[in-house]
Protein backbone atom coordinates (compact mmCIF):
# COMPACT_ATOMS: atom_id res chain seq x y z
CA UNK A 1 0.00 0.00 0.00
CA UNK A 2 1.48 3.32 -1.04
CA UNK A 3 1.89 5.93 1.66
CA UNK A 4 0.95 9.07 -0.22
CA UNK A 5 2.52 11.36 2.35
CA UNK A 6 5.75 9.89 1.11
CA UNK A 7 5.05 11.35 -2.31
CA UNK A 8 4.62 14.80 -0.81
CA UNK A 9 7.81 14.44 1.23
CA UNK A 10 9.83 12.98 -1.63
CA UNK A 11 9.01 15.98 -3.82
CA UNK A 12 9.68 18.36 -0.95
CA UNK A 13 13.04 16.71 -0.26
CA UNK A 14 14.01 16.44 -3.91
CA UNK A 15 14.16 12.64 -3.76
CA UNK A 16 13.33 11.70 -7.34
CA UNK A 17 13.78 7.96 -6.82
CA UNK A 18 11.27 7.72 -4.01
CA UNK A 19 8.84 10.08 -5.74
CA UNK A 20 8.81 7.85 -8.79
CA UNK A 21 8.56 4.63 -6.81
CA UNK A 22 5.67 5.87 -4.67
CA UNK A 23 3.88 7.16 -7.76
CA UNK A 24 4.19 3.74 -9.38
CA UNK A 25 2.90 2.02 -6.25
CA UNK A 26 0.03 4.46 -5.93
CA UNK A 27 -1.01 3.94 -9.52
CA UNK A 28 -0.82 0.15 -9.09
CA UNK A 29 -3.04 0.51 -6.03
CA UNK A 30 -5.60 2.32 -8.14
CA UNK A 31 -5.19 5.92 -6.97
CA UNK A 32 -6.51 8.67 -9.22
CA UNK A 33 -3.62 10.36 -11.09
CA UNK A 34 -5.30 13.76 -10.75
CA UNK A 35 -5.57 13.36 -6.98
CA UNK A 36 -1.88 12.45 -6.72
CA UNK A 37 -1.03 15.67 -8.48
CA UNK A 38 -3.53 17.94 -6.77
CA UNK A 39 -3.47 16.59 -3.24
CA UNK A 40 0.16 15.65 -2.87
CA UNK A 41 2.50 17.07 -5.48
CA UNK A 42 1.05 20.55 -5.84
CA UNK A 43 1.05 21.19 -2.08
CA UNK A 44 4.63 19.94 -1.94
CA UNK A 45 5.75 22.35 -4.67
CA UNK A 46 3.92 25.20 -3.06
CA UNK A 47 5.75 24.44 0.21
CA UNK A 48 9.02 24.34 -1.79
CA UNK A 49 8.18 27.80 -3.15
CA UNK A 50 7.40 29.10 0.33
CA UNK A 51 10.67 27.79 1.71
CA UNK A 52 12.55 29.39 -1.19
CA UNK A 53 10.89 32.75 -0.58
CA UNK A 54 11.88 32.73 3.08
CA UNK A 55 15.46 31.54 2.49
CA UNK A 56 15.03 28.07 3.92
CA UNK A 57 15.53 26.56 0.47
CA UNK A 58 18.01 27.74 -2.13
CA UNK A 59 18.46 27.11 -5.85
CA UNK A 60 19.86 23.53 -5.48
CA UNK A 61 17.01 22.37 -3.23
CA UNK A 62 14.42 23.88 -5.54
CA UNK A 63 15.91 22.37 -8.69
CA UNK A 64 16.03 18.92 -7.08
CA UNK A 65 12.41 19.18 -5.93
CA UNK A 66 11.50 20.14 -9.48
CA UNK A 67 13.32 17.10 -10.81
CA UNK A 68 11.49 14.82 -8.39
CA UNK A 69 8.17 16.28 -9.41
CA UNK A 70 9.00 15.96 -13.11
CA UNK A 71 9.84 12.27 -12.72
CA UNK A 72 6.39 11.57 -11.28
CA UNK A 73 4.64 13.82 -13.73
CA UNK A 74 6.16 11.89 -16.60
CA UNK A 75 4.36 8.80 -15.34
CA UNK A 76 1.13 10.64 -14.67
CA UNK A 77 0.82 12.91 -17.68
CA UNK A 78 -0.21 10.30 -20.25
CA UNK A 79 -2.80 8.95 -17.81
CA UNK A 80 -4.15 12.41 -17.11
CA UNK A 81 -4.45 13.10 -20.82
CA UNK A 82 -6.17 9.77 -21.45
CA UNK A 83 -8.75 10.65 -18.82
CA UNK A 84 -9.33 14.03 -20.39
CA UNK A 85 -7.90 15.94 -17.40
CA UNK A 86 -6.82 19.19 -18.99
CA UNK A 87 -4.01 21.19 -17.37
CA UNK A 88 -4.95 24.55 -15.84
CA UNK A 89 -3.16 26.17 -18.74
CA UNK A 90 -0.42 25.58 -21.27
CA UNK A 91 2.66 27.77 -20.88
CA UNK A 92 5.32 28.34 -23.53
CA UNK A 93 8.34 29.24 -21.40
CA UNK A 94 11.70 30.47 -22.56
CA UNK A 95 14.67 32.77 -21.99
CA UNK A 96 14.68 35.48 -24.58
CA UNK A 97 16.91 35.54 -27.66
CA UNK A 98 20.55 36.36 -26.91
CA UNK A 99 20.25 35.31 -23.26
CA UNK A 100 21.57 32.03 -21.87
CA UNK A 101 20.53 32.31 -18.21
CA UNK A 102 18.17 29.50 -17.37
CA UNK A 103 18.21 28.95 -13.62
CA UNK A 104 15.45 31.48 -12.91
CA UNK A 105 13.46 30.23 -15.87
CA UNK A 106 13.76 26.63 -14.68
CA UNK A 107 12.53 27.57 -11.23
CA UNK A 108 9.58 29.40 -12.75
CA UNK A 109 8.81 26.36 -14.91
CA UNK A 110 8.91 24.08 -11.88
CA UNK A 111 6.58 26.28 -9.86
CA UNK A 112 4.16 26.54 -12.79
CA UNK A 113 4.12 22.76 -13.20
CA UNK A 114 3.65 22.47 -9.48
CA UNK A 115 0.71 24.83 -9.89
CA UNK A 116 -0.98 22.52 -12.38
CA UNK A 117 0.17 24.13 -15.62
CA UNK A 118 1.65 22.22 -18.50
CA UNK A 119 4.98 23.81 -19.33
CA UNK A 120 6.46 23.73 -22.80
CA UNK A 121 10.08 24.58 -22.05
CA UNK A 122 11.63 26.17 -25.13
CA UNK A 123 15.00 26.55 -23.41
CA UNK A 124 17.33 29.53 -23.71
CA UNK A 125 18.10 31.93 -26.55
CA UNK A 126 14.54 31.49 -27.81
CA UNK A 127 13.56 33.30 -30.99
CA UNK A 128 10.16 34.96 -31.46
CA UNK A 129 9.46 32.34 -34.13
CA UNK A 130 9.85 29.56 -31.57
CA UNK A 131 7.31 31.22 -29.27
CA UNK A 132 4.93 31.67 -32.19
CA UNK A 133 5.29 28.03 -33.19
CA UNK A 134 4.54 26.91 -29.63
CA UNK A 135 1.35 28.96 -29.66
CA UNK A 136 0.25 27.67 -33.04
CA UNK A 137 1.35 24.05 -32.86
CA UNK A 138 1.26 23.25 -29.16
CA UNK A 139 -1.71 25.46 -28.30
CA UNK A 140 0.02 27.40 -25.57
CA UNK A 141 -2.30 29.97 -24.02
CA UNK A 142 0.34 31.63 -21.82
CA UNK A 143 3.75 32.85 -22.90
CA UNK A 144 6.32 33.27 -20.12
CA UNK A 145 9.54 35.07 -21.00
CA UNK A 146 12.68 35.43 -18.89
CA UNK A 147 15.60 37.85 -19.38
CA UNK A 148 18.59 38.46 -17.10
CA UNK A 149 20.60 40.94 -19.12
CA UNK A 150 19.92 44.61 -19.69
CA UNK A 151 21.11 43.99 -23.23
CA UNK A 152 18.47 41.31 -23.86
CA UNK A 153 15.51 43.08 -22.22
CA UNK A 154 14.63 44.80 -25.53
CA UNK A 155 14.28 41.34 -27.11
CA UNK A 156 11.19 40.86 -24.91
CA UNK A 157 9.50 43.71 -26.71
CA UNK A 158 10.67 42.39 -30.06
CA UNK A 159 9.11 39.05 -29.15
CA UNK A 160 5.80 40.61 -28.16
CA UNK A 161 5.78 42.69 -31.35
CA UNK A 162 6.47 39.57 -33.41
CA UNK A 163 3.52 37.83 -31.75
CA UNK A 164 1.35 40.76 -32.76
CA UNK A 165 2.65 40.71 -36.33
CA UNK A 166 1.96 36.97 -36.54
CA UNK A 167 -1.60 37.58 -35.37
CA UNK A 168 -1.33 35.39 -32.27
CA UNK A 169 -0.92 38.06 -29.57
CA UNK A 170 -4.62 37.98 -28.66
CA UNK A 171 -4.67 34.21 -28.22
CA UNK A 172 -2.26 34.34 -25.29
CA UNK A 173 -1.48 36.10 -22.05
CA UNK A 174 2.13 37.12 -21.65
CA UNK A 175 4.04 37.17 -18.37
CA UNK A 176 7.63 38.34 -18.02
CA UNK A 177 10.33 38.25 -15.37
CA UNK A 178 14.04 38.07 -14.56
CA UNK A 179 16.26 40.07 -12.24
CA UNK A 180 16.39 43.38 -14.20
CA UNK A 181 12.68 43.35 -15.14
CA UNK A 182 10.29 45.68 -13.33
CA UNK A 183 6.52 46.17 -13.38
CA UNK A 184 7.09 49.46 -15.19
CA UNK A 185 9.11 47.75 -17.91
CA UNK A 186 6.52 44.98 -18.21
CA UNK A 187 3.81 47.62 -18.71
CA UNK A 188 5.91 49.52 -21.23
CA UNK A 189 6.42 46.54 -23.50
CA UNK A 190 2.80 45.50 -23.28
CA UNK A 191 3.09 42.34 -21.18
CA UNK A 192 0.02 41.21 -19.24
CA UNK A 193 1.77 40.14 -16.06
CA UNK A 194 5.03 40.27 -14.16
CA UNK A 195 6.49 38.75 -11.06
CA UNK A 196 9.84 39.04 -9.40
CA UNK A 197 9.71 35.56 -7.93
CA UNK A 198 9.11 31.99 -9.07
CA UNK A 199 6.20 31.44 -6.70
CA UNK A 200 4.78 34.77 -7.82
CA UNK A 201 4.86 33.51 -11.41
CA UNK A 202 2.02 31.11 -10.56
CA UNK A 203 -0.15 33.88 -9.11
CA UNK A 204 0.74 36.07 -12.08
CA UNK A 205 -0.34 33.32 -14.49
CA UNK A 206 -3.61 32.85 -12.59
CA UNK A 207 -4.27 36.57 -12.48
CA UNK A 208 -3.73 37.21 -16.19
CA UNK A 209 -6.00 34.33 -17.13
CA UNK A 210 -8.83 35.70 -15.02
CA UNK A 211 -8.42 39.20 -16.42
Amino acid sequence: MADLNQLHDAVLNGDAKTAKAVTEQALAAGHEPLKLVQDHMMPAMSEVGRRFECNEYFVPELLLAARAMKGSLELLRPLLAAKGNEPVGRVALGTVKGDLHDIGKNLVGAMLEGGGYEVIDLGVNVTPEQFIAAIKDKKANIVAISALLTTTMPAMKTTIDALKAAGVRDQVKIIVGGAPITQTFADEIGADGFSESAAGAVSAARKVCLA
Partner: protein
Amino acid sequence: MNFNQLVLNSPRRLALPISMSPGLALTGAKVSDIVTNSQAQLDAQAALQQRYQSPFVLGAMDLSVEAEAFGCTIAVSDSEVPTVTGRLITNQEQADKLAVPQPGDRRTGVYLEAVRLLRQLPGQPFVFAGCIGPFSLAARLVGVSEAMELTIAEPELMHTLLEKCTDFLTNYLKAFRAAGAHGVIMAEPAAGLLSPRGLSAYSSVYVKRLAAEASDEALSIVLHNCGAKLLHLPAILETGLKAYHFGAPMDIVGALGKVAPDVILCGNLDPAGVFVQSPPAETTAKTAQLLAATAGHRNFVISSGCDLPPNAPLASLDAFYAAVKTANQ
Protein backbone atom coordinates in the same frame (compact mmCIF):
# COMPACT_ATOMS: atom_id res chain seq x y z
CA MET B 1 51.11 48.44 1.28
CA ASN B 2 48.35 45.86 1.06
CA PHE B 3 44.74 46.64 0.19
CA ASN B 4 43.56 46.76 3.79
CA GLN B 5 46.28 49.16 4.86
CA LEU B 6 45.64 51.34 1.83
CA VAL B 7 41.93 51.60 2.64
CA LEU B 8 42.19 51.94 6.40
CA ASN B 9 44.91 54.60 6.16
CA SER B 10 43.18 56.62 3.48
CA PRO B 11 42.16 60.09 4.63
CA ARG B 12 39.25 60.09 2.16
CA ARG B 13 36.62 57.60 1.07
CA LEU B 14 37.81 55.42 -1.78
CA ALA B 15 35.89 54.02 -4.72
CA LEU B 16 36.51 50.79 -6.59
CA PRO B 17 33.92 50.26 -9.32
CA ILE B 18 34.48 47.05 -11.26
CA SER B 19 34.73 48.71 -14.58
CA MET B 20 36.53 47.89 -17.73
CA SER B 21 33.81 48.37 -20.32
CA PRO B 22 33.29 52.12 -19.77
CA GLY B 23 36.99 52.53 -20.63
CA LEU B 24 36.16 51.23 -24.09
CA ALA B 25 34.11 54.34 -24.75
CA LEU B 26 37.35 56.25 -24.24
CA THR B 27 39.71 54.08 -26.28
CA GLY B 28 37.34 52.89 -28.98
CA ALA B 29 38.30 49.25 -28.45
CA LYS B 30 35.75 46.43 -28.50
CA VAL B 31 35.04 43.95 -25.70
CA SER B 32 36.56 41.28 -27.91
CA ASP B 33 39.83 43.26 -27.94
CA ILE B 34 39.91 43.45 -24.15
CA VAL B 35 39.61 39.71 -23.68
CA THR B 36 42.30 38.83 -26.20
CA ASN B 37 44.77 41.67 -25.93
CA SER B 38 46.55 42.85 -22.79
CA GLN B 39 47.49 46.17 -24.38
CA ALA B 40 43.78 46.93 -24.93
CA GLN B 41 43.20 46.31 -21.22
CA LEU B 42 46.05 48.62 -20.32
CA ASP B 43 44.77 51.36 -22.63
CA ALA B 44 41.23 51.17 -21.21
CA GLN B 45 42.44 51.22 -17.61
CA ALA B 46 44.92 54.02 -18.32
CA ALA B 47 42.12 56.10 -19.85
CA LEU B 48 39.85 55.49 -16.86
CA GLN B 49 42.61 56.23 -14.43
CA GLN B 50 43.42 59.47 -16.13
CA ARG B 51 39.78 60.51 -16.05
CA TYR B 52 39.07 59.59 -12.43
CA GLN B 53 42.49 59.56 -10.71
CA SER B 54 41.61 56.28 -9.05
CA PRO B 55 44.22 54.67 -6.79
CA PHE B 56 43.19 51.28 -8.27
CA VAL B 57 43.45 49.69 -11.70
CA LEU B 58 41.96 46.34 -12.63
CA GLY B 59 42.56 43.56 -15.08
CA ALA B 60 39.35 42.65 -16.89
CA MET B 61 36.73 40.44 -15.25
CA ASP B 62 36.39 37.51 -17.63
CA LEU B 63 34.86 34.44 -16.05
CA SER B 64 35.38 32.27 -19.10
CA VAL B 65 39.16 32.40 -19.29
CA GLU B 66 39.99 29.81 -16.62
CA ALA B 67 37.32 27.38 -17.82
CA GLU B 68 38.67 27.75 -21.34
CA ALA B 69 42.13 26.85 -20.04
CA PHE B 70 40.61 23.63 -18.69
CA GLY B 71 39.26 22.89 -22.18
CA CYS B 72 35.76 24.37 -22.24
CA THR B 73 34.60 25.79 -25.53
CA ILE B 74 33.57 29.42 -25.51
CA ALA B 75 31.37 31.62 -27.63
CA VAL B 76 32.92 34.97 -28.53
CA SER B 77 31.19 38.11 -29.63
CA ASP B 78 32.39 41.64 -30.33
CA SER B 79 30.32 43.21 -27.63
CA GLU B 80 30.20 40.68 -24.76
CA VAL B 81 32.77 38.93 -22.62
CA PRO B 82 33.03 35.33 -23.94
CA THR B 83 30.76 32.77 -22.37
CA VAL B 84 31.26 29.04 -21.89
CA THR B 85 29.08 26.84 -24.06
CA GLY B 86 28.08 23.28 -23.24
CA ARG B 87 29.44 21.07 -20.49
CA LEU B 88 33.03 19.83 -20.42
CA ILE B 89 32.38 17.33 -17.63
CA THR B 90 29.31 15.18 -17.28
CA ASN B 91 30.45 12.33 -15.04
CA GLN B 92 32.89 11.20 -12.37
CA GLU B 93 35.20 9.41 -14.78
CA GLN B 94 35.70 12.55 -16.86
CA ALA B 95 36.29 14.52 -13.67
CA ASP B 96 38.94 12.04 -12.54
CA LYS B 97 40.73 12.27 -15.88
CA LEU B 98 40.54 16.04 -16.19
CA ALA B 99 44.01 17.57 -16.51
CA VAL B 100 44.86 20.71 -14.57
CA PRO B 101 46.14 23.46 -16.88
CA GLN B 102 49.08 25.77 -16.20
CA PRO B 103 48.87 29.53 -15.67
CA GLY B 104 49.65 31.05 -19.06
CA ASP B 105 47.68 28.41 -20.96
CA ARG B 106 45.21 29.69 -23.55
CA ARG B 107 44.07 33.22 -22.81
CA THR B 108 45.20 33.23 -19.16
CA GLY B 109 48.47 34.57 -20.58
CA VAL B 110 46.65 37.73 -21.70
CA TYR B 111 45.58 38.41 -18.13
CA LEU B 112 49.01 37.77 -16.65
CA GLU B 113 50.56 40.07 -19.23
CA ALA B 114 47.92 42.73 -18.53
CA VAL B 115 49.05 42.84 -14.90
CA ARG B 116 52.67 43.31 -15.99
CA LEU B 117 51.61 46.21 -18.20
CA LEU B 118 49.37 47.78 -15.55
CA ARG B 119 52.29 47.84 -13.14
CA GLN B 120 54.06 50.22 -15.51
CA LEU B 121 51.36 52.91 -15.28
CA PRO B 122 52.50 56.26 -13.91
CA GLY B 123 51.44 57.10 -10.37
CA GLN B 124 51.96 53.49 -9.24
CA PRO B 125 48.32 52.55 -8.79
CA PHE B 126 47.32 49.46 -6.83
CA VAL B 127 46.98 46.71 -9.44
CA PHE B 128 44.18 44.19 -9.13
CA ALA B 129 44.06 41.07 -11.23
CA GLY B 130 40.70 39.39 -11.73
CA CYS B 131 39.91 35.70 -11.58
CA ILE B 132 37.08 33.28 -10.93
CA GLY B 133 36.52 31.45 -7.64
CA PRO B 134 36.77 27.67 -7.21
CA PHE B 135 33.07 26.82 -7.06
CA SER B 136 32.14 29.08 -9.95
CA LEU B 137 34.95 27.56 -12.01
CA ALA B 138 33.86 24.00 -11.18
CA ALA B 139 30.31 25.04 -12.05
CA ARG B 140 31.39 26.27 -15.47
CA LEU B 141 33.10 22.93 -16.18
CA VAL B 142 30.04 20.89 -15.28
CA GLY B 143 27.31 23.43 -16.21
CA VAL B 144 26.13 26.08 -13.77
CA SER B 145 22.57 24.85 -13.42
CA GLU B 146 23.75 21.23 -13.17
CA ALA B 147 26.35 22.16 -10.55
CA MET B 148 23.57 23.42 -8.31
CA GLU B 149 21.92 20.01 -8.25
CA LEU B 150 25.19 18.10 -8.10
CA THR B 151 26.12 19.79 -4.81
CA ILE B 152 23.38 17.67 -3.26
CA ALA B 153 23.04 14.77 -5.70
CA GLU B 154 26.73 13.99 -6.40
CA PRO B 155 28.99 15.71 -3.88
CA GLU B 156 31.96 13.54 -4.82
CA LEU B 157 31.95 14.71 -8.42
CA MET B 158 31.86 18.33 -7.29
CA HIS B 159 34.67 17.82 -4.79
CA THR B 160 36.84 16.13 -7.41
CA LEU B 161 36.42 19.15 -9.66
CA LEU B 162 36.91 21.59 -6.81
CA GLU B 163 40.24 20.00 -5.89
CA LYS B 164 41.47 20.52 -9.44
CA CYS B 165 40.06 24.03 -9.74
CA THR B 166 41.69 24.96 -6.42
CA ASP B 167 45.05 23.59 -7.58
CA PHE B 168 44.86 25.61 -10.76
CA LEU B 169 43.72 28.80 -9.04
CA THR B 170 46.48 28.53 -6.42
CA ASN B 171 49.06 28.49 -9.19
CA TYR B 172 47.24 31.20 -11.13
CA LEU B 173 47.29 33.47 -8.08
CA LYS B 174 50.99 32.82 -7.58
CA ALA B 175 51.55 33.70 -11.23
CA PHE B 176 49.61 36.95 -10.79
CA ARG B 177 51.77 37.81 -7.82
CA ALA B 178 54.91 37.01 -9.81
CA ALA B 179 53.60 39.29 -12.57
CA GLY B 180 53.36 42.10 -10.04
CA ALA B 181 49.72 42.13 -8.96
CA HIS B 182 49.08 43.74 -5.57
CA GLY B 183 45.71 42.10 -5.23
CA VAL B 184 43.23 39.76 -6.86
CA ILE B 185 39.49 40.16 -7.04
CA MET B 186 38.22 36.60 -7.03
CA ALA B 187 34.65 36.26 -8.28
CA GLU B 188 32.51 33.52 -6.83
CA PRO B 189 29.05 34.44 -8.22
CA ALA B 190 27.62 30.94 -8.49
CA ALA B 191 28.27 30.29 -4.80
CA GLY B 192 25.75 33.00 -3.93
CA LEU B 193 22.99 30.72 -5.19
CA LEU B 194 23.82 27.98 -2.66
CA SER B 195 22.54 27.66 0.89
CA PRO B 196 24.91 28.98 3.56
CA ARG B 197 25.81 25.38 4.33
CA GLY B 198 26.45 24.63 0.66
CA LEU B 199 28.50 27.79 0.27
CA SER B 200 30.62 26.82 3.23
CA ALA B 201 31.31 23.28 1.97
CA TYR B 202 31.71 24.03 -1.75
CA SER B 203 33.31 27.44 -1.74
CA SER B 204 34.67 28.75 1.57
CA VAL B 205 36.69 25.62 2.36
CA TYR B 206 38.48 25.82 -0.98
CA VAL B 207 38.94 29.59 -0.97
CA LYS B 208 40.48 29.34 2.47
CA ARG B 209 42.87 26.68 1.29
CA LEU B 210 44.03 28.49 -1.79
CA ALA B 211 44.39 31.77 0.07
CA ALA B 212 46.59 30.08 2.65
CA GLU B 213 48.86 28.83 -0.10
CA ALA B 214 48.88 31.72 -2.51
CA SER B 215 48.23 34.88 -0.56
CA ASP B 216 50.59 36.70 1.75
CA GLU B 217 51.23 40.27 2.83
CA ALA B 218 52.11 41.10 -0.76
CA LEU B 219 48.95 39.80 -2.39
CA SER B 220 45.53 40.85 -1.11
CA ILE B 221 42.58 38.67 -2.03
CA VAL B 222 39.21 40.36 -2.31
CA LEU B 223 36.47 37.74 -2.51
CA HIS B 224 33.55 38.84 -4.67
CA ASN B 225 30.12 37.28 -4.37
CA CYS B 226 27.38 39.17 -6.18
CA GLY B 227 24.53 36.88 -5.16
CA ALA B 228 25.19 36.52 -1.43
CA LYS B 229 22.73 37.82 1.14
CA LEU B 230 23.35 38.72 4.75
CA LEU B 231 22.45 35.20 5.83
CA HIS B 232 25.43 33.92 3.81
CA LEU B 233 27.90 36.22 5.54
CA PRO B 234 29.01 33.88 8.36
CA ALA B 235 29.70 31.11 5.84
CA ILE B 236 31.70 33.51 3.67
CA LEU B 237 33.72 34.79 6.61
CA GLU B 238 34.83 31.20 7.22
CA THR B 239 37.36 31.82 4.43
CA GLY B 240 39.24 33.99 6.94
CA LEU B 241 39.97 36.57 4.25
CA LYS B 242 40.39 40.23 5.12
CA ALA B 243 38.44 41.79 2.22
CA TYR B 244 35.12 41.06 0.49
CA HIS B 245 33.11 42.52 -2.35
CA PHE B 246 29.34 42.12 -2.46
CA GLY B 247 26.47 42.63 -4.88
CA ALA B 248 23.12 44.32 -4.53
CA PRO B 249 21.41 41.46 -2.60
CA MET B 250 23.73 42.07 0.38
CA ASP B 251 22.54 44.29 3.23
CA ILE B 252 25.84 46.13 3.33
CA VAL B 253 25.10 48.20 6.42
CA GLY B 254 24.01 45.05 8.24
CA ALA B 255 27.18 43.30 7.08
CA LEU B 256 29.37 46.18 8.28
CA GLY B 257 27.86 45.66 11.70
CA LYS B 258 28.97 42.04 11.68
CA VAL B 259 32.60 42.18 10.56
CA ALA B 260 35.68 43.28 12.46
CA PRO B 261 36.68 46.90 11.79
CA ASP B 262 39.84 45.81 9.97
CA VAL B 263 37.93 43.66 7.47
CA ILE B 264 37.19 45.58 4.27
CA LEU B 265 33.78 45.35 2.62
CA CYS B 266 33.22 46.70 -0.89
CA GLY B 267 29.96 47.07 -2.79
CA ASN B 268 27.20 47.18 -3.76
CA LEU B 269 25.39 49.49 -6.20
CA ASP B 270 23.35 47.39 -8.63
CA PRO B 271 25.31 47.43 -11.91
CA ALA B 272 22.22 47.21 -14.11
CA GLY B 273 19.75 49.17 -11.97
CA VAL B 274 22.08 52.00 -10.96
CA PHE B 275 24.56 52.25 -13.83
CA VAL B 276 22.51 51.27 -16.88
CA GLN B 277 18.83 51.79 -16.18
CA SER B 278 19.08 54.99 -14.10
CA PRO B 279 19.83 58.42 -15.55
CA PRO B 280 23.11 59.92 -14.25
CA ALA B 281 21.34 62.15 -11.71
CA GLU B 282 19.88 59.06 -10.10
CA THR B 283 23.26 57.31 -10.15
CA THR B 284 24.65 60.29 -8.24
CA ALA B 285 21.77 60.16 -5.76
CA LYS B 286 22.07 56.43 -5.13
CA THR B 287 25.85 56.67 -4.73
CA ALA B 288 25.43 59.52 -2.25
CA GLN B 289 22.79 57.54 -0.37
CA LEU B 290 25.02 54.53 0.06
CA LEU B 291 27.93 56.72 1.14
CA ALA B 292 25.69 58.39 3.71
CA ALA B 293 24.39 55.05 4.99
CA THR B 294 27.94 53.79 5.46
CA ALA B 295 29.45 57.01 6.79
CA GLY B 296 31.87 56.40 9.62
CA HIS B 297 32.84 52.93 8.39
CA ARG B 298 36.43 53.34 7.33
CA ASN B 299 36.45 49.71 6.23
CA PHE B 300 33.85 50.30 3.51
CA VAL B 301 34.79 50.96 -0.12
CA ILE B 302 31.97 51.96 -2.43
CA SER B 303 31.73 49.95 -5.64
CA SER B 304 29.41 48.50 -8.22
CA GLY B 305 27.91 45.22 -7.02
CA CYS B 306 29.46 43.44 -9.98
CA ASP B 307 31.21 44.06 -13.26
CA LEU B 308 29.58 46.96 -15.12
CA PRO B 309 27.77 45.71 -18.23
CA PRO B 310 29.21 46.76 -21.60
CA ASN B 311 26.24 49.05 -22.20
CA ALA B 312 26.82 51.06 -19.01
CA PRO B 313 27.29 54.64 -20.21
CA LEU B 314 30.39 56.60 -19.24
CA ALA B 315 28.08 59.33 -17.94
CA SER B 316 26.95 56.93 -15.17
CA LEU B 317 30.50 56.32 -14.06
CA ASP B 318 31.13 60.10 -14.15
CA ALA B 319 28.08 60.57 -11.95
CA PHE B 320 29.30 57.88 -9.53
CA TYR B 321 32.76 59.43 -9.14
CA ALA B 322 31.25 62.91 -8.85
CA ALA B 323 29.15 61.74 -5.90
CA VAL B 324 32.21 60.23 -4.21
CA LYS B 325 34.10 63.47 -4.72
CA THR B 326 31.27 65.51 -3.21
CA ALA B 327 31.14 63.22 -0.19
CA ASN B 328 34.86 63.74 0.33
CA GLN B 329 34.61 67.54 0.35
